[in-house]
């Protein structure tokens, strides 16, 4: 498995997981399916980008930073869209999205060993 594919799969998996954590917020529970789908898609794109970056640049610190940046950017794109109540949940979406982006950035640098 090459790094972009690995990043895509890992990003999607973590995106599903991150989306499901919305269940702990009762106010957004009715919109859980949409959140999970959006989060999965975000993770998929971010993972693919991180994997491609890892294929070109072999540096764990840079990989983490890149993943964090891409995760933050994609999370901002989603957070910028108003919710059903018209509110924006920047912190709630961007913070965990950034950290998960960093996780994918790290993982694609370390694994798999084949580019």
């Amino acid at each position: 498995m090459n790094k972009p594919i690995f990043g895509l799969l890992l990003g999607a998996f973590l995106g599903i997981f991150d989306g499901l954590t919305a269940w702990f917020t009762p106010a957004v529970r009715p919109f859980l399916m949409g959140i999970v789908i959006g989060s999965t898609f975000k993770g998929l794109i971010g993972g693919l980008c991180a994997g491609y970056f890892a294929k070109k640049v072999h540096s764990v610190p840079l990989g983490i930073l890149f993943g964090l940046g891409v995760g933050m950017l994609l999370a901002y794109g989603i957070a910028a869209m108003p919710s059903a109540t018209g509110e924006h949940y920047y912190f709630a979406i961007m913070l965990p999205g950034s950290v998960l982006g960093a996780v994918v950035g790290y993982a694609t640098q370390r694994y798999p060993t084949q580019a």
Partner: protein
Amino acid sequence: MDWLTNSVIDHLREAMDAPDLTGASYVLGKELGRGGMGIVYEARDTRLGRTVALKVLSPLAASAEAVERLWREARILASLEHPGIVPIHDAGMLSDGRAYYAMKLVEGSRLDEYLQAGPSVLELCRVFLRICEPVAFAHARGIVHRDLKPENIMLGKFGEVLVLDWGVATALGESERPGLVIGTPGYMAPEQSEAGPVDARADVYSLGNLLREAVGTAPPRALRSIVKRATELDPARRYQTVAELSGDVASFLDHQPVNAHRENWLERAARVLGRHKTLAWLIVAYLVVRVLLFFFVHP
């Protein structure tokens, strides 16, 4: 008499012991050390223009047996070409009848001196692996060192690690005079101290003691298990080869399971986390962010 101080006596002894290098292509330098059998000097090889270490038989050890021992040591060194074993350049007899051999002069510190600087356990393990390489190499060529101890390990200025003093090394299967004990108390294997036949496992025992001394009194449990297995009194219960011993130390360094140690679930988790420290911290960061968002940011 007041003028016969210790330093004067030492100086006189050095002068009396100094070899006669007439006819040899060496110029004598300072004395580097002395053992029971020989004295090691720094010397200048005038033919090749380099500084060497010259090991000369002590005047008090001028017997045929001592000469044969020195030649055997020289032959062993000549047969073991390895970066971790001091290469021998020359051997012969001086004009005063004393046998000698010339070897590479190693500049650096002995392992016992290095240990006083208090290096980390991980660094010590890396150095230990470097010590195992020439020993395993010698075993593969049928030679057992029999006197492995910190004083016989040199750490060079450029990070090289060399095993010195193969003076009591023996070929596997060779036996000594009955009852003759060869080695250093505290490091030699029980079978060696009982003047019994020794094999590579005797060096494994010495390396285990060396590792025990290097890592101190409170090493990680896996390392303690490695030391325990290497220093088993029964050779059959020890690591059978230096490669097995160094393999376990390498596994420890790599956060892999160690054969000598049966870990509990907590140790296993700590080992896995140690191997993936960055990932563990990132996951912790994610969970902390989630918890903080749950408690402080409610949509």
